C-alpha cells in the first residue's frame, strides 16, 4: 500500500487559506447567499410597498411627487368618488362571480379529464392555452370576438334567429342589430374572459389534487357500493378541500389585482361599468398623474390580499402539522 499521507497533509494545510475558511463557514455562506436576493426584494418590493402606502396618505402628483405631510384627505376624496365606489363593487363582484363559477367548472373539467382517452395530451394542451398565453394577447383575441359589428357570437345568434333576421340588410350593411358585448353586457363579457383565463390553472391544480387521492380510498367507496355523486361529495371533495381552496385563493389574487383584461377590452367603459380598482388606480395614478389618489385606490386591495395571505398561511401551517 502506498503511503502518501505526509505530503497530502501538507498540501491540505496550504489550502487552508482565509478565503477557503470563509467558504466553509455556514453562517457566512448563508448570509452571503441570501443577501443579494433579500436586498433586492427589500429595495424594489419593500420600499415601493411602503411608499405606496405613504403616497396614499399624501397629496403627491406626478408634477410634485414629494410627500409633505400625511393625512386622510386623499382617502376621503377617493371614498367620495362615485367611480371609485363603482370600481370597488366591480372588483369584488367580478372576482367573486368569476372565481365561484371557476371552482365549479374547474371541478367538472378536472373530473372529466382524470380518465384517460385518446388524444388527451392534445386536449390538455388546448385547454391550457389560455393560461399559457400572455394575458394581453389573449384579451386582444377576445376584443375581436366581442367586436361590435363582426362578433361571431352575433353571427350565430342571427343564424338562429335570436338577433334580427338573417339577410335583412341594405347593401353590405346589415340592418340587424348587434349585441355590443362590451357595452351593455360589458361586465358579463369581462367575467367570461376572466373565467377563460383562470380556468386552466384551477383545473390543473385540481387535477393534481384528484390524482393524489389514494386508489384504495376510491376502491373502498366502490366496494361499499357508494354511488358516483355520494363518493364525489362525501369522499373526494373533503379530501381535496385544501387544494380547492388553494385554486380558489390563487384565482382570487390574480383576478382581483388584474387590470390587463379591463385595459384591453373596455378601459373601464365609458360609464365605468367595468372599471375595477386596479384599472382605476392606473388611470388616476399614471394616466392622470395623481400619484396619491392612484396609490390610495390601489391600497384598498391590500386588506383583501392580506386576508388571503393569512388564509394561505394557515392552510400551510395546518398541513405542516398533519
Amino acid at each position, binding site marked *: 500500500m*502506498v503511503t502518501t499521507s505526509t505530503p497530502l497533509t501538507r498540501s491540505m*494545510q496550504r489550502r487552508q487559506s482565509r478565503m477557503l475558511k470563509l467558504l466553509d463557514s455556514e453562517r457566512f455562506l448563508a448570509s452571503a447567499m441570501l443577501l443579494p436576493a433579500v436586498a433586492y426584494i427589500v429595495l424594489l418590493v419593500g420600499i415601493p410597498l411602503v411608499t405606496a402606502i405613504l403616497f396614499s396618505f399624501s397629496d403627491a402628483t406626478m408634477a410634485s411627487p414629494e410627500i409633505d405631510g400625511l393625512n386622510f384627505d386623499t382617502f376621503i376624496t377617493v371614498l367620495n368618488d362615485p367611480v371609485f365606489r363603482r370600481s370597488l363593487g366591480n372588483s369584488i363582484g367580478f372576482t367573486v362571480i368569476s372565481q365561484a363559477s371557476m371552482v365549479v367548472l374547474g371541478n367538472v373539467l378536472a373530473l372529466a379529464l382524470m380518465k384517460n382517452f385518446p388524444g388527451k395530451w392534445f386536449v390538455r394542451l388546448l385547454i391550457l392555452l389560455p393560461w399559457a398565453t400572455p394575458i394581453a394577447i389573449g384579451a386582444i383575441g377576445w376584443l375581436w370576438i366581442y367586436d361590435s359589428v363582426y362578433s361571431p357570437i352575433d353571427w350565430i345568434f342571427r343564424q338562429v334567429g335570436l338577433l334580427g333576421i338573417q339577410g335583412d340588410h341594405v347593401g353590405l350593411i346589415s340592418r340587424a342589430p348587434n349585441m355590443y358585448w362590451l357595452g351593455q353586457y360589458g361586465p358579463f363579457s369581462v367575467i367570461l374572459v376572466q373565467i377563460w383565463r383562470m380556468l386552466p390553472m384551477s383545473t390543473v391544480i385540481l387535477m393534481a389534487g384528484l390524482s393524489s387521492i389514494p386508489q384504495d380510498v376510491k376502491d373502498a367507496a366502490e366496494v361499499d357500493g357508494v354511488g358516483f355523486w355520494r363518493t364525489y361529495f362525501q369522499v373526494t371533495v373533503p379530501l381535496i378541500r385544501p387544494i380547492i381552496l388553494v385554486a380558489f385563493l390563487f384565482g382570487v389574487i390574480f383576478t382581483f389585482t388584474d387590470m390587463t383584461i379591463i385595459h384591453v377590452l373596455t378601459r373601464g367603459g365609458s360609464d365605468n361599468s367595468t372599471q375595477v380598482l386596479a384599472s382605476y388606480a392606473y388611470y388616476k395614478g399614471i394616466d392622470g398623474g395623481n400619484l396619491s389618489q392612484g396609490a390610495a385606490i390601489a391600497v384598498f386591495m391590500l386588506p383583501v390580499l392580506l386576508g388571503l395571505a393569512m388564509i394561505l398561511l394557515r392552510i400551510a401551517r395546518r398541513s405542516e402539522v398533519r
Partner: protein
Amino acid sequence: MAVVETVKLSKHFNDVKAVDGIDITIQEGEFLVLLGPSGSGKTTLMRMIAGLEKPTGGTIKIGDRVVNDLPPRLRNVAMVFQSYALYPHMSVYNNIAFSLRPLGMTRQQIDDKVHWAARMFSIDHLLSRKPRQLSGGQRQRVALARAIVREPDVFLLDEPLSNLDAKLRAMARDELKQFQRQLGVTTIYVTHDQVEAMGMGDRVAVMSNGRMHQLGTPQVLYQSPADTFVATFLGTPPMNLVETDSCLLGFRPENFLPEAAHPDTPHPLVIDFHLTRVEFLGSDRLLYGTIEGADGPVKVVGDLPSVIDYTPEPGTICPMMVDRRHLSYFDKSTGQRIAPTPFALRGLRDPAGTA
C-alpha cells in the same frame, strides 16, 4: 492510521443532549463499533468526528491534532453513509476519483489509485457505469472503494450494511472486516444491529441517550455487561432479569436449562419454573414461563438447544438450573453491575443458594 480520541465530547440540539460527555480512545488500526438504539447519539458522535456537526463542548483529536475547528475536508477522514451517498451524476470512476481531485494529483496518479481501489473491491468492470445502474451490493462496494481510495487516517461507516438484504449482509460483514484488517485503518462503525457489532468489532461501545454505557470486547460485553441496559440490549432473547431481595439477578437464556437435561455443573442454582409455552426454532427451543421474583412472577426465557433430547411439558412446574458462574448481579436502583451478593428467591430449591 491514527488514534482518535474524544474528551468530554458533547452535542446539544436545543434541550436535547444528543451526545452527553463521551470519553473514548480508538486505537490505531482498531475496529470500533458504536452500538445503540436509534436516538442514542451514536451517529451524532460519528458526525462530530467527521466534522459534519460542531461539538457543543469537549475536544476531538485525530492523530496528534485537535480537529474541533477543522472542516471535514481537512481531517483526512473518509465516511460511508447509510445511503452510500454516491454522486448520481458521476460514473463510478468519477465517484471514486472525486476525493482525489482536490489533492492536486496528476491524472496518472489518480488513475492508478482508482484502479487500485476498484480492484480491491472487485468493481473494476463497473467503472464506467452510473450509480443507478448498480445493484445494492455493488453500490456498497463503490462507496467503500471511494472511501479507501484516499487512504484516510480514519474510516467512518454509518450503518453501511443496513440497505443490503439479509443474505448479502452476512457476506458483506465478513468482507468488510477482512478489508479493514488488510488496510489497517482505524475504523469507527455505527450500527444498531448487535450481530454486526459482535461479529466485527474489536471493541464495542454501547450507547443510549447520548451516554456510553460500556466499552469493551464483544465477549466482555456479553458475559459481564456493565449495567442492565447493556445486559438487555445484547443477546436474543436478551438476558433475563429477576428482582431478588438484595439485587437484580441476571442470567442468559442459554444458561437457563432444565435440571433434567443439564450436565453436571459444579455450582448449580435450581429454580422452579412455571413453563407456559415452548417455541420450536429449529436449532433451538425457547421456553417461555415465569419464576417467582421478589414482587411476584417474572417472565423469563430459557434457550434449549435442539441437540438436548429432552422436552419439558408446558403447563408444568419445571426445575431449571443456572451455573452460578453465569450469574450477573446488578444494583436494584442504579442498574449498575455489582459484585456477587447473597440473595433470597422464593422459588429456589437449593438451600445453598441463600449462602
